[in-house]
């Protein structure tokens, strides 16, 4: 009895430390310490669990802990910040896999021992396995798309939505059936299989630029699967941690969809960017762009008083964050000021640009959210756009036929002049022409972002 009380006490401590850890993330200064305490909470809970009276052999536990640490350590220490979206996606796979397998093991054991499974327990197990399994394959697909061994373009075919809904309905049907007949093993494993397939098909038609929403949603599902595990095995710390995770993922998905002015349903079933609707978006015919040389761009930047950098996914692809910082330091040396305008969906996951620029040692005071900085563009001499496209497209404001109409954007077009760094004139991910590129005040600096920035740094130094 005392042992059981002690175990429960460790779970209580862990729960409190987890909540405090997340709360510490509301302030940048306290964040690190708070998360270290949360890690301590995890250790406490694991130690408590190891004292559980049911645990009689430790060899498999020790093996799992050691192998997991050996794989987990390099995933924590060596993964570069540019690969953070993939890293998060694959960790959802592991998290959801753990929840799913615990659910399957629990179900198998109950049947094996001939225990009668109550409907409440079956409901928990069902949710756990459903959410868990679809998160495992769904996140793996997201990982594949981000790592680019699966095409980042949406994959669509006729009747896709009907088929997906059909599979999901069938899985739910199995679930309903199990609530009444929990002893029918075959139905359970069919449900598991359907959930795995559904996860793949759900993410297949979703394009790379929509990944921030998918990752957030998977975060939420992984949390709900953990919570369901807690219900299934009667463990409060699991319920709490899962609920926190679920709430976090849910809030992030809402923020992301708002930033794209699109609904969940549209992102999940809309296959955005698969084929530009004919005649909908404006075309570039008859418009010309003005290229700018590195020398001229350097001159303009060197004498600017306020430069606002607008980073996008292209910055991450080119891994040019350190060159951005070098350039910014030179401009500051010349007496100018440099700020960064971060759109909520810039990059491939929430906050992607912030960690990237922070990695390059840029102080976070200079990283400004969209609403915070948009009014400053009217005083801005040069808006430097690096690898961003849709988030600065004025069509979102004034072209009702544009697919991105209504999406909040960064007002780069209100700056005195605009320099766009671009590899080529291919339209952005959504296949939409960006009229910002054709404005008289806009100049285009063609080439790889990293090379261009390196040359800019050299030029500004010479000035």
């Amino acid at each position, binding site marked *: 009895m005392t042992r059981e009380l002690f175990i429960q006490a460790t779970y209580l401590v862990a729960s409190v430390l987890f*909540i405090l*850890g997340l709360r510490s*993330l509301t302030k*940048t200064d306290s*964040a*690190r310490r708070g*998360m*270290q305490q*949360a890690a301590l909470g*995890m250790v406490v*809970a694991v130690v*408590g669990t190891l004292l559980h009276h*049911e*645990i*009689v052999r430790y060899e*498999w*536990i020790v093996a*799992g*802990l050691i*192998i*997991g640490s050996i*794989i*987990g350590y390099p*995933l924590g*220490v060596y993964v570069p910040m540019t690969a*953070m979206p993939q890293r998060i996606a694959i*960790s959802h796979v592991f*998290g959801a896999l*753990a*929840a799913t*397998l*615990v659910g*399957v093991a*629990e179900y*198998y054991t109950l049947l094996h021992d001939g225990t009668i499974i109550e409907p*409440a327990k079956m409901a928990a197990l069902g949710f756990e396995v459903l959410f868990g399994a679809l998160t495992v394959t769904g996140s793996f697909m997201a990982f594949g798309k981000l790592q680019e061994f699966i095409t980042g373009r949406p994959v669509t075919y006729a009747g896709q939505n009907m088929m997906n809904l059909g599979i999901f309905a069938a899985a739910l049907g199995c679930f309903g059936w199990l609530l009444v007949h929990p002893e029918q093993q075959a139905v359970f494993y069919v449900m598991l299989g359907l959930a795995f397939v559904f996860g793949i098909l759900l993410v297949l038609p979703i394009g790379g630029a929509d990944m921030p929403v998918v990752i957030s949603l998977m975060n939420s599902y992984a949390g709900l699967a*953990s919570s369901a*595990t*807690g*219900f299934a095995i*009667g463990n409060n710390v*699991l*319920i709490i941690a*899962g*609920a*926190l*995770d*679920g*709430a*976090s993922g849910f*809030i*992030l998905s809402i*923020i992301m969809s708002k930033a794209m002015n699109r609904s969940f349903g549209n992102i999940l079933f809309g296959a955005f960017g698969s084929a530009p609707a004919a005649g909908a978006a404006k075309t570039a015919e008859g418009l010309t762009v003005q290229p700018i040389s590195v020398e001229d761009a350097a001159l303009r930047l060197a004498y600017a008083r306020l430069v606002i950098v607008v980073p996008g996914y292209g910055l991450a692809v080119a891994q040019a964050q350190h060159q951005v910082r070098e350039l910014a330091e030179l401009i500051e040396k010349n007496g100018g000021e440099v700020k960064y305008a*971060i759109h909520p969906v810039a990059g491939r*996951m929430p*906050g992607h640009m912030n960690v990237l620029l922070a990695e390059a040692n840029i*102080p*976070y*005071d200079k990283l400004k*959210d969209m609403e915070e900085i948009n009014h400053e563009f009217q005083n801005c001499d040069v808006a430097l756009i690096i690898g961003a496209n849709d988030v600065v497209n004025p069509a979102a404001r004034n072209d009702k036929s544009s697919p991105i109409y209504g999406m909040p954007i960064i007002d780069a077009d209100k700056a005195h002049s605009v320099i766009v760094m671009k590899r080529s004139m291919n339209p952005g991910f959504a296949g939409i022409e960006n009229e910002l590129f054709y404005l008289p005040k806009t100049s285009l600096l063609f080439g790889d972002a990293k090379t261009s920035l390196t040359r800019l740094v050299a030029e500004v130094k010479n000035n």
Partner: protein
Amino acid sequence: MNVTAVIELYVFVLAGFVGFLVITRVPPLLHTPLMSATNAISAISLVGSLVAAGADRNTVSTILGFIAVTSATINAVGGFIITDRMLKMFRHDPKVTEAKK
């Protein structure tokens, strides 16, 4: 539906509220660390997998439990390390700090 299940539902709903209130206050600046942090925290599913792996109930449970312990440990270890690594990078502008003084 028994009493325990109802209490568990209470815990779930209240924890969800706490999560909602806390997380809406996390600035966009820290959204990536937030995501890796919640990931690391949800590795608490270890408490379930450890029992499955160690209770010696049957071979299936032991093997599935072992895989679950491994996956959850990957997230616990890797998740907290990478969160710490990211948070370490966020630094103040020394000029701004001085101006505030």
